[in-house]
């Protein structure tokens, strides 16, 4: 039950062009993001101390990150004392291998999964499949993605790019191949679709011996893990199996139980626009006669320490994965999540992905540019990540890294040319005369839609106005003598 991965995604501009041509996708996205933006606004407006909560949330994250080693050690000690086992993973591959080994040790061939960005990030389902273990996604949207052999396109609602009619088609086509089929007379009424998912997954929950999850928060002081969800699929996976394996990024730790009072208010209102999500579960190690008898916590680095090493970029680790920044982003709303080539799309993805994965690949290098820097993301961020600041910082980093490359980029050539032209008034005047002459050749109705040579890359996405026949300085000299 493997879907396609993000491997080999082209750089953002070309992926975005494909997405923009898909009118159904644009319609689905505009509808969904408009709905959620309105809900979030209402939910936030009724909280009188919202700004104080944001600032407290940001500060707790800053405190945690600056002393991360200490909190992780405290967490490890408490989880272990409460009957859990803690595993450490340097990268995604190592984390996936740990999980595969743990599942194999139980002798089971299938696991039920709570929606988890981290397990997506490490490609866990693929690693399990390679070991002959079937992973069933149980969140409704993840189920849609998995059954549709698709990729997630949103942090909160991975199937946001699908409308109800498409979901109905996927359920009718694919449910039967993996368990209980959808009823033949299934309509596209969301209530009926949810009912079909309930029946399809019920059998899997009741027989499951191993559950796999992420966690929204880990509390260092008590060793408590927290999962925030809506449907109850999370509770099923966290409660009914005999073994629970949670894969969590090291940045998810918070110092104290009291700190949760901030995040449990910030997250639901930012995320689904609700006062509180239907279900939040917390557990500490194992509990006799309640829930799994074995609990494994896999702590993942996977580029987080690289992110931590950059004092400006570090704030991206504040992220609590609410996805409010996606829903307000004018770029995300038009191109959707797939163009970002990562499980973390949208503004937060544009700052997180190049830091977690590095900027060796062209697709990742292009991400800091996937923004208009309008700042809407910063305004809604519940933990005050200054995304525009990090974007500009990462653009500078990408350019600096480019300086060491042997073949100069068109941008570097253009900048070098500009430096030479702008170095003296006579050179500038000559260049302006040349541009005016060229403009008369290339322009039509006052616009140039295709520049020659390397500059054509620039006009692929926009027109250039034809340069004026005469520069301002020339006009001044002529009329004010």
């Amino acid at each position, binding site marked *: 039950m493997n879907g396609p991965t993000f491997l080999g995604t082209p750089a953002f501009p070309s992926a975005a062009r494909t997405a923009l041509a898909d009118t159904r996708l644009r319609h689905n996205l505009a509808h*969904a993001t408009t*709905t*959620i933006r309105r*809900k979030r606004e209402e939910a936030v407006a009724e909280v009188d*101390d919202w700004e*104080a*909560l944001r*600032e*407290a949330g940001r*500060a707790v994250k800053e*405190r945690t990150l*600056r*002393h*991360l*080693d*200490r909190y*992780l050690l405290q967490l490890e000690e408490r989880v272990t004392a409460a009957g859990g086992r803690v595993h*450490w*993973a340097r990268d995604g591959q*190592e984390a996936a291998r740990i999980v595969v080994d743990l599942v194999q040790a139980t002798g089971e061939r299938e696991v039920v999964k709570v929606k988890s960005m981290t397990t997506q990030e490490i490609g866990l389902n693929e690693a399990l499949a390679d070991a002959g273990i079937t992973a069933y996604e149980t969140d*409704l*949207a993840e189920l849609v993605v998995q059954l549709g052999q698709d990729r997630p396109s949103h942090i909160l*609602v991975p199937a*946001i790019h699908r*409308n109800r009619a498409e979901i109905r088609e996927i359920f009718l086509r694919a449910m039967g191949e993996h368990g209980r089929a959808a009823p033949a007379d299934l309509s596209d009424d*969301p209530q009926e679709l*949810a009912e079909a998912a*309930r029946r399809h997954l*019920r059998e899997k929950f009741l027989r499951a011996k191993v559950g796999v999850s992420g966690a929204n928060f880990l509390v260092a002081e008590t060793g*408590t893990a927290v999962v925030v969800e*809506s*449907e*109850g*699929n999370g*509770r099923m996976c966290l*409660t009914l199996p005999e073994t629970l394996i949670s894969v969590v990024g090291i940045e998810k730790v918070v*110092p104290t*139980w*009291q700190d949760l*009072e*901030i995040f449990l*208010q910030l997250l639901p209102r930012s995320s*689904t626009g*609700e*006062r*509180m999500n*239907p*279900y*939040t*579960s*917390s557990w*500490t190690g194992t*509990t006799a*006669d*309640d*829930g799994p008898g074995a609990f494994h916590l896999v702590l993942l*680095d996977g580029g987080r*320490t690289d992110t*931590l*090493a950059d004092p400006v970029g570090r704030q991206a680790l504040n992220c609590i994965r609410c996805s409010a920044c996606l829903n307000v982003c004018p770029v995300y709303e038009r191109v959707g999540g797939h163009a970002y080539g990562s499980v973390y799309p949208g503004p937060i993805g544009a700052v997180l992905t190049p830091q977690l994965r590095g900027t060796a690949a062209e697709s990742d290098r292009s991400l800091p540019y996937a923004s208009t820097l309008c700042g809407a993301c910063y305004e809604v961020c519940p933990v005050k990540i200054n995304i525009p600041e990090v974007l500009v910082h990462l653009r500078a980093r990408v350019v600096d890294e480019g300086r060491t490359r042997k073949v100069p980029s068109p941008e570097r050539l253009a900048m070098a040319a500009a430096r030479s032209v702008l170095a003296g008034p006579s050179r500038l005047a000559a260049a302006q005369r040349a541009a005016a002459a060229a403009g008369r050749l290339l322009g039509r109705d006052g616009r140039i839609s295709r520049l020659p040579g390397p500059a054509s890359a620039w006009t692929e996405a926009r027109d250039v106005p034809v340069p004026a026949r005469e520069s301002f300085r020339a006009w001044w000299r002529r009329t004010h003598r």
Partner: protein
Amino acid sequence: MNARTEVLSRIRRALADVPEGERPEDVPVPRAYARGGTAAAGSPQVVELLTTRLADYGASVHLVSEGAAPTVIAQTLSARGAACAVVPQGFPPAWLAALDPHRVLDDRPRVPVRELDRVDSVVTTAAVAIAETGTLVLDGGPGQGRRALTLVPDHHVCVLRAEQVVARVPEALARLDPVRPLTFVSGPSATSDIELDRVEGVHGPRTLHVLIVV
């Protein structure tokens, strides 16, 4: 170097800009947000707010007197047509007085999960409730049982006392013991996964009845 040592040393290297002697408490956390409620726990205002909030989520809420509680619990189950209900240990026996004992299942010995799937309803107490967010919190204490009991049956009747209702989230967390497995319930199970519209009823109990004893 094993993974643990390596991750920890990467963290320490990454934090080279943090001064040697800095302690966590040196990074200020301003807690200027409201920690206490506008109204006292158990006051008519918080009870009324909880009622409205829960109703917004599609839960049914009734205020009952101590004396009427047993009858209302029995009526709620029979109106649902529940043939049997599981009731965890420690649930106040007086509240069960109007129920036919043959239709009440206690969890001793533990009801296997497949059997639980055939049980119509579950009746529990709660540890605390949060008015502002319309949230009930269960901590597995007396009358609440293990987590599976309030998860697998499709109908949950939760009985709480007015004094258990606090105004805000911080007050509730202060009353809870994080070492116990906790479940925060805000309405019946729901999903917003289809075009971001909230639809009630996926895997958890699809019907939630809350009785507040005042």
